[in-house]
């Protein structure tokens, strides 16, 4: 029985009504699906010629696999740098020094408020104007920088709320055995805070993977851009979009599943009851 406060456990008459509604709803959903297929068919989007390219190894080796590599590569670099950025500024926000707290807070709030795309475009143009990196690394650098700044700020908030969600006794215990505030933070609170936040951190990976598709706008060779090349070659936009959507969804679904698993496994790993919630994390795409 699902725990839903809205509905009573159904009696026999309601059960019958539900069964009827169930069938009607199912027919409506299937009808909608059939209508989509029909429209695609009528517009000639379901012909074999449009789908066949995705069964050839050339399309995969020339376009899609490099695209997946570009997407995952940018995501991987961003995750590493965002982790470092997040721990540094998360600790900064928890520091005893008011100045350090203020500066870290301002940086984190700023990069959380500015859209990732804005930063990506800015960094890209900045790199071009000042010739800071070789031209074949321009787009990757811009994508990774923008993703790092935004997601690093999110990680900083996660670290902070993870530490703040710990029971007060943890900090008191650290201080009472003679550790300084910094030592307590680093060796007692931070490991537990990060453990508590691990599921949220993993779900943030979904955001990183999705946002790497913003690199499309600055011609970074990620999956969406590569799929467009395929679509231009074979004039099969709809199939190309569907195929890469499936790839994105598969990758992100797997990441979400890992996050769920972790959440369940880690529930007993930290001291005290934890319900860590950082504001505005998983909902945002930027």
């Amino acid at each position, binding site marked *: 029985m699902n725990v839903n406060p*809205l509905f009573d456990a159904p009696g026999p008459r309601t059960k019958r009504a539900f069964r009827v509604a169930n069938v009607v709803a199912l027919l409506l959903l299937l009808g909608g699906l059939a209508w989509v297929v029909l429209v695609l068919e009528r517009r000639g989007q379901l012909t074999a010629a449009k789908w066949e390219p995705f069964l050839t190894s050339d399309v995969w080796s020339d376009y899609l696999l490099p695209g997946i590599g570009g997407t995952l590569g940018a995501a991987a670099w961003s995750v590493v740098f965002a982790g470092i950025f997040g721990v540094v500024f998360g600790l900064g926000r928890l520091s005893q020094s008011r100045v350090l707290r203020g500066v870290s807070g301002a940086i984190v709030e700023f990069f959380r408020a500015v859209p990732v*795309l804005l930063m990506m475009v800015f960094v890209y143009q900045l790199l071009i104007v000042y010739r800071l990196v070789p031209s074949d690394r321009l787009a990757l650098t811009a994508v990774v920088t923008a993703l790092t700044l935004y997601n690093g700020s999110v990680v900083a908030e996660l670290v902070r709320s993870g530490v703040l969600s710990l029971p007060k006794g943890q900090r008191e215990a650290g201080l009472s055995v003679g550790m300084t505030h910094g030592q307590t933070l680093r060796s007692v609170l931070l490991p537990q805070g990060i453990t508590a936040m691990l599921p949220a951190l993993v779900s943030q990976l979904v955001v990183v993977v999705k946002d790497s598709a913003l690199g499309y706008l600055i011609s970074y060779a990620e999956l969406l851009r590569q799929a467009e090349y395929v679509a231009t070659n074979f004039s099969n936009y709809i199939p190309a979009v569907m195929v890469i959507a499936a790839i994105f969804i598969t990758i992100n679904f797997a990441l979400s599943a890992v996050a769920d698993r972790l959440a369940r496994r880690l529930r007993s790993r930290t001291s005290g009851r934890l319900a860590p919630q950082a*504001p505005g994390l998983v909902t945002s795409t930027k």
Partner: protein
Amino acid sequence: MTTLSTDVSSLFAQYDIFGAFAMTLRLTGMALIGSLAIGTVLAVMRISPIPSLQLGGAIYVNVVRNTPLTLILVACSLGLYTQLGIVLADSSSSTFIVDNNIRLAVLGLSVYHASFVCEALRSGVNTVPTGQAEAARSIGLSFGQSLRLVILPQAFRGAIAPLGNVVIALTKNTTVAATIGVAEASYVMKEMIEFRPDVIFLVFGIFAVGFVLIVLPVGVFMTWLSRRVAVTR
């Protein structure tokens, strides 16, 4: 300092920066209405006691949530319009391309954020303990009464904070509409930087501050509101 202020005033004179932000706000407003409408329907589906509706809602949310917004907007423009010939504006009008792109962007943004609206509303319902429904029933309230008087008021209050996050994300995500040529803030910024690379930091600063000025008050207001109406348990 004088050069800075001349630069700023020349930039504002030369480019329609306020117009760009007006477009950002317009996209936000329209997509918010759209995503609230679709998201509410989805939330009702997901919390309904009918399994096939629950399944349909769950599939929508999980598929859309895991798809990049950029992909959705490109699919709206190249897929719906270019390939399937679906138009959302009057094709004989002189501003057809602009109108159509804006509406496609609103459609894409609404479809994408509807999944987050749905989850926000659902999390609001989840904040209501089952005991509240049991208590309502035990004092003799009917199903409709307990929904109207006890459960929904608490559910809406619980949903405010997550909805606030959706609004903020949506505001920032309107920048992705630049992908399909809608002249909102990020699009205009890109143009400005390309033509005036000498003042690149200034241009970025103007737009970054613009977003901070839009996003921070929304965040503060929603947090204040959610605290103010919070149900203390």
